[in-house]
């Protein structure tokens, strides 16, 4: 259902990525995990959730958690206005929304354009990075979004990752 994009699976064939911004940094994620992009709406708060989980929203009948990556990785200002964007992702049969500062473009990349990620200097742990790429003289950080969202650190899924096909 969703593409399992592994680090090794990035081929020489072009793959499309959605670029987005967090603070001043440019990031990109596999476009095939994106279900939709929508404006931010006030979510319903959930008790005992870490601050970066803003709550849940109603996405056409599905109760979907909303994660603010800006809070999670302490980049940019976590402000919410009519320009705040939520990227709704479809990962491991689950739906998750991530709050970002903006969505910029769709880019095609292949393995040759990829540079290994640095060990420091980026907000994300290198475990969740596929690498770096340069497009139009801008550095783009490729995020392994599957890995990131299903990580224990995010605490979005129960520890026994129930990839149950409830749908």
């Amino acid at each position: 259902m969703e593409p399992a994009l592994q680090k090794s699976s990035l081929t020489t064939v072009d793959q499309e990525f959605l670029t987005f911004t967090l603070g001043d940094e440019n990031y990109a994620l596999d476009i095939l995990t994106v279900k939709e992009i929508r404006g931010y709406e006030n979510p319903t708060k959930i008790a005992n959730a870490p601050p970066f989980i803003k709550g849940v929203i109603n996405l056409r009948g599905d109760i979907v958690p909303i994660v603010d990556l800006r809070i999670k990785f302490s980049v940019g200002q976590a402000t919410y206005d009519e320009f705040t964007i939520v990227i709704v992702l479809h990962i491991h049969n689950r739906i998750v929304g991530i709050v970002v500062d903006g969505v910029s473009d769709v880019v095609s990349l292949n393995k040759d354009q990829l540079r290994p990620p640095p060990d420091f200097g980026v907000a994300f742990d290198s475990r969740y990075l596929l690498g770096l790429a340069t497009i139009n003289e801008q550095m783009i950080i490729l995020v392994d979004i599957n890995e990131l969202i299903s990580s224990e650190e995010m605490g979005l899924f129960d520890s026994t990752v129930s990839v149950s096909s409830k749908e």
Partner: protein
Amino acid sequence: MSIDMQQFHSVFFEESQEHLDEMEHLLLELDVVNPDNEQLNTIFRAAHSIKGGAGIFGFDGLVSVTHVMESLLDKIRQGKMAITADMVDLFLGSVDVLKGILTSYRNHTDIDWAAANRLTELLESATDGKVNSQSKKSKKDEDQGFGFFTDPVLGEAQESYGFFEDIDQKQQEAYGFFEDLPATPAAPISVVEKPVVAEPQTSSSNVTANAPGNSKTKAADTSVSAENSSIRVDVTKVDQLINLVGEIVITQSMMNLIGKSIDGSLGEKYQSISAELERNTREIQEAVMSIRMLPVSFVFNRFPRVVRDLSQKLGKSIDLIIEGGETELDKGLTEKLVDPLTHLVRNSIDHGIESADVRVARGKEATGKVTLRAAQQGGSIVISIMDDGAGLNREKILRKAREKNISIGDNPSDAEVWQLIFAAGFSTADQVTDVSGRGVGMDVVRRNVQSLGGRIDIDSVEGQGSTFTIRLPLTLAIVDGMGVSVGDQTFIIPLVNIIESMQPAEKDIKTLVGDDQLLLVRDQYWPILPLYKSMQISSQFTDVHKGIAVLIETNKHKFALFVDALVGQQQVVIKSLEQHYKRVQGVAGATIMGDGSVALILDVESLGLTVAQKNPEFLAKAS
């Protein structure tokens, strides 16, 4: 067998199943003293249709049994022979055997030929008039009820059991066989569980020898169930449809809201169209919801047989009255209701209804009465099992409770005492019978009912009878809830758990060491749980007396939930929070409100647990 034949087979199986159900139904209704010829004819025709169909497909097992049944029925309907209660028993037994055979054919399992052969012989000897002569003797006693003549028969049953395989059976053995039948659970009547029944019947030792080359493959189709003219649809598809329709309703109500802000003639037009759309969507929603609904008679219809078998076995005479069988209930609920209801009905017959002489001595009619009633009350279905028997014995229950070291207050109310019988291992039966008395059961009944989101209440007057009332939500997907607000958020509390809501007076609030507070309501202290603390949100009020206290009772806990305000009572559709997120302490699920926002449904049981953990000493005092 070719594929085409298979298709015809399934039609035949379904038709035969219907015929058998009809036969059973008519046999139970049949007035033995003064039989209605039309009913006899219908029974005969049903047997004949099965025989005809079975003959075409070569289901010899069915043919042989229905053939002899037919001969006997023919004699009766032509007036050559008078039908007796024993014959009705015999026919009912035949129906069971036929159902068993039908199931075996359907599931390609081995047929219980021994049972079929025994039955054929019994029917043949009955046709020869032997049963008839025997039953003339018992006919004299008929006025005194079934109970009278079953007792001596039971004795014979054991004696004659060993001769069953003998070919020349006398009519007495006829009883032996049929008295024996009820011991195997009455499941053969059940439509849904039929495949399961096939097993015990095939396990009989000398069966396989006679069985023609039927392989023992219990293939995937063992789950075939008899459904009449209907299409089978995956439940998930229906649920998806229900989900989507729910969304349309919400979207529609949002559109409605916007429409109200349009002015002028355009706005008027818009609103009239919007009203029409609203009506249509409501109708669609109802129609879609009704796909999952089944009349509760699907469950009730098995009870005449259960009651009949059981009353004979226990030597009691009992009338079963069924009311409201047309009440509709979610399919998932009906299936899960069978076990608890069966248990309660058996209980009523075994413990509730007294034996005939005791009843007469108490100035009641000798025939006991058990009533099964279903009715819709608002958003819930109420099913009651009433008997006019002895009622619950308060003293006996209290004594047993003390024996079992179940803690009870000094002067418990009747309702509290009745709740004791739901404790695990609790039984007041003096004797353990194979019907009931082992004390496993009532706790299971209650657990089953609760797992369906319902609750069970007891009402009992000693000497006059008891009523067990099961209250269930209309469907599993909808809960009756009370909306409460805390800060800018809305939460839903399941209505079944709410005792009452109130604005507490300042003087009734006692503060314990620390922050914990108690609320005094009618001489009882309730620990106060502020919802804003459990949900970690800011609230409008932090002083309990300014907000609302909702008194909540769960199975194990009682507490007062402190909220800002009541929003209103409504039915909400339960959505899973775990599907895309994970379990949250104190939250049972989520729902979507009329404006499209998400409200959390509270899990009062786990909230109660947090209260208990905080106030162990308080709970110790309370119990």
